[in-house]
């Protein structure tokens, strides 16, 4: 038998990002791999199977792609493995039923590149994710990996590197949007050594997973970005701070560091150019405040992660009081591309004040949930309705939350707002690290504010009084409002405490903590009033202020709600009408979610007397 070492004709890519893994994609990967290996030499093709990082379209997972034809299968089940292997790997057939169904056109599309979800995206930070096997450094190298490192080491001076990053206008993707080049420049200027390079992979926003996906799906891009900075500022040691819960990110990052060392990209005399640099992983202990840069450094030093006052600047006195550059995961992932393609090119994408792209985790009440990367300046409407496909069950869009616990809720009047650092801040929210949570008419804005405040109350480190006490007081008021104990003057009191916090808190956690409350009061004051004055939660979320009933006119007697009710609180007769026993109802809202005729309604407590 002749043994040609041929390049595989087909490559089968199985998404093994967190979302798909939760949908059992590992079994699909193993199944396809086994079939392909067993068929071995008999087949005229040599497909390889790769476990890739997140494709972004988590909603339709698990996802299997077949190259070079770019066939995109979604919602794949373990039972589909044989058919995929027979028809699409051994042969060139397409299994129509597994293709992506574009909800806007009602058609099945062959390649993910043809979907509305992908067409409007522009991938820079996520360039390799879903395309490469994160465990393979060769995959990374094949897609221009470590070319930027080589370029800076052979053709650029440290100053030129800094100039290029500064010219590109890259702003930190971790939240505040500080110009990355300026930060590097300030650190390079300080004549104190050693210096450190730190990657912030703490990702504290409770509803987001962009950084995790990058660390899981393309760890080398982060390492290369840090190397380039180390060269520019003259650092020899780096740290990547990853939250301990991110098991896969930790594993993939550790493996990538090991590979990079083996290939001479890390360690001593890198690429024989005399540069020394190595990176260690530090596992975070799961505290939101540790995402704040000074708290994070305290945590790396092995102390309790409390922030310190801002006038001491980390670029001069950071980790162990030495000059330190700290950037976010996504910021790092952008750096090699900027070096390769130039500042000019980067500036041509995005908006004037915020060049480039931003990764968002688009989640909540939206049809296509998952990770997206879009040029800055795109409107919220485009993101939510074109890429996201709109609101499920064609309910009404109510608000979108950005910026996590430091951000706010943006209402539908502002849907045409361009998404960039400055306009989001103006709207009373902020860019944050990229959480984007879509809310519909069944989301209560007061309760959302309460949710974030509760999160922050638990996460406040307690070091400064305004934050520790202020958040607690605001939370107490919000809890009262949600429980039907709201009083006249509560709104004004919230505004008052909020303003104090913004002024007096020590770190960003406390200063931005009132944002979820202030922005919802700004745009949804009426909803607060309904809660306080009428004891009515229009969204039907706050239990004390919700009474579900079935509109007898609208009910068609299908009985679905009765089947879904976990308490058996709904009774009636098929093809006639159903009613809810209010004494049994726990207000979980499943009946309302199930009803296709909108017959389940909420009359709140205010009408109690009329019934």
């Amino acid at each position, binding site marked *: 038998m002749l043994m040609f070492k041929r390049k595989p004709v087909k490559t089968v890519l199985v998404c093994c990002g967190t979302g798909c893994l939760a949908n059992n994609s590992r079994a699909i990967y193993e199944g396809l791999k086994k079939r392909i290996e067993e068929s071995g030499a008999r087949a005229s093709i040599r497909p390889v199977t790769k476990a890739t990082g997140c494709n972004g379209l988590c909603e339709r997972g698990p996802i299997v792609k077949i190259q070079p034809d770019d066939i995109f299968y979604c919602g794949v089940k373990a039972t589909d493995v044989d058919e995929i292997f027979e028809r699409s790997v051994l042969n060139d057939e397409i299994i129509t039923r597994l293709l992506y169904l574009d909800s806007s056109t009602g058609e099945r599309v062959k390649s993910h590149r043809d979907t509305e979800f992908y067409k409007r995206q522009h991938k820079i930070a996520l360039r390799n994710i879903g395309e490469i096997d994160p465990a393979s450094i060769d995959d990374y190298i094949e897609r221009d990996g470590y070319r930027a490192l080589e370029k800076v080491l052979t053709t650029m001076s440290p100053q030129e590197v800094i100039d290029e990053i500064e010219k590109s206008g890259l702003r930190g993707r971790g939240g505040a949007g500080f110009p990355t080049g300026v930060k590097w420049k300030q650190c390079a200027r300080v004549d104190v050594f050693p210096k450190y390079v730190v990657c912030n992979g703490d990702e504290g926003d409770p509803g987001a997973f962009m950084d995790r996906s990058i660390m899981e799906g393309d760890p080398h891009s982060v390492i290369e970005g840090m190397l380039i900075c180390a060269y520019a500022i003259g650092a020899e040691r780096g740290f990547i701070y990853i939250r301990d819960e991110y098991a896969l990110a930790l594993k993939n990052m550790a493996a990538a560091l090991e590979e990079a060392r083996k290939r001479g990209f890390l360690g001593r005399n890198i690429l024989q150019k005399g540069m020394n640099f190595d990176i260690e992983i530090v596992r975070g202990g799961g505290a939101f405040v540790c995402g704040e840069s000074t708290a994070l450094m305290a945590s790396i030093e092995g102390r309790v992660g409390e922030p310190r006052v801002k006038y001491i600047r980390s670029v001069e006195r950071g980790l162990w009081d030495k000059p330190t550059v700290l950037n976010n995961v996504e910021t790092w992932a952008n750096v090699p591309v900027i070096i390769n393609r130039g500042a000019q090119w980067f500036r041509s994408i995005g908006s004037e004040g915020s060049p480039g792209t931003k990764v968002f985790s688009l989640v909540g009440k939206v049809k296509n949930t998952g990770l997206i990367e879009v040029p800055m300046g795109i409107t919220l409407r485009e993101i939510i309705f074109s890429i996201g496909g709109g609101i499920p069950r064609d309910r009404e869009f109510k608000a979108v939350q950005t910026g996590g616990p430091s951000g706010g809720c943006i209402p539908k009047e502002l849907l045409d707002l361009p998404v960039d650092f400055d306009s989001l801040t103006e709207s009373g929210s902020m860019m944050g690290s990229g*959480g984007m949570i879509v809310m519909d008419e069944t989301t209560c804005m007061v309760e959302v504010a309460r949710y974030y405040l509760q999160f922050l109350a638990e996460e406040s480190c307690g070091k400064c009084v305004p934050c520790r006490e202020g958040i607690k007081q605001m939370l107490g008021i919000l809890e009262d409002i949600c429980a039907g104990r709201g009083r006249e003057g509560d709104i004004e009191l919230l505004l008052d405490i909020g303003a104090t916090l913004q002024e007096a808190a020590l770190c960003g956690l406390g200063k931005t903590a009132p944002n979820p409350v202030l922005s919802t009061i700004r745009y949804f004051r009426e909803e607060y009033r309904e809660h306080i004055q009428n004891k009515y939660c229009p969204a039907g979320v706050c239990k004390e202020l919700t009474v579900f009933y079935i509109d007898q006119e609208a009910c068609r007697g299908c009985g679905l709600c009765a089947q879904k009710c976990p308490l058996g609180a709904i009774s009636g007769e098929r093809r006639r009408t159903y009613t809810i026993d209010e004494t049994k109802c726990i207000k979980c809202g499943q009946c309302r979610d199930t009803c296709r005729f909108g017959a389940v309604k909420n009359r709140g407590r205010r009408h109690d007397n009329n019934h």
Partner: protein
Amino acid sequence: MPAGSIEEGLSQAKEIIGKYPREQRFLLAALQDIQKHYNYLPREALALVQEHFSVPMSRLYSMATFYKALTLKPKGKYVIKVCDGTACHIRGSSLLVEELQRLLRIAPGETTTDGKFSLETVNCLGSCAIAPVMVINDQYYGRVTTAAVGKILEDLEAKE
């Protein structure tokens, strides 16, 4: 979950701690490893940490209470983590927590007296697309409804 028991001795803890140089910056990592192994931080193991790193016990307690990943009490055989990240929250995760509280008669952060179940809420698990999400040990459950919660618990009980 392969949790070590304190009865099997502290040799494991010694081994874990021994891997780390006696520098303060490895303190958190050592505590995390002990937590992983025993599912909590046994007093006896903390004493070893104290000795190894020469830090006062109060420091260890302040670390243990500050960092969420660390606990001073043992956890149950099944650790039920309900995601209360924003995406899960607005798709009703708090209803799941309430249902679990009702069925298990414990609050988040607690363990049933028979040591079988612990209930926890966590932040985003990266699976918002299938929100609300619940993880029991390493098994993910997506699009969980209040009705499904009871069924999942029954299945676990049946396995016993």
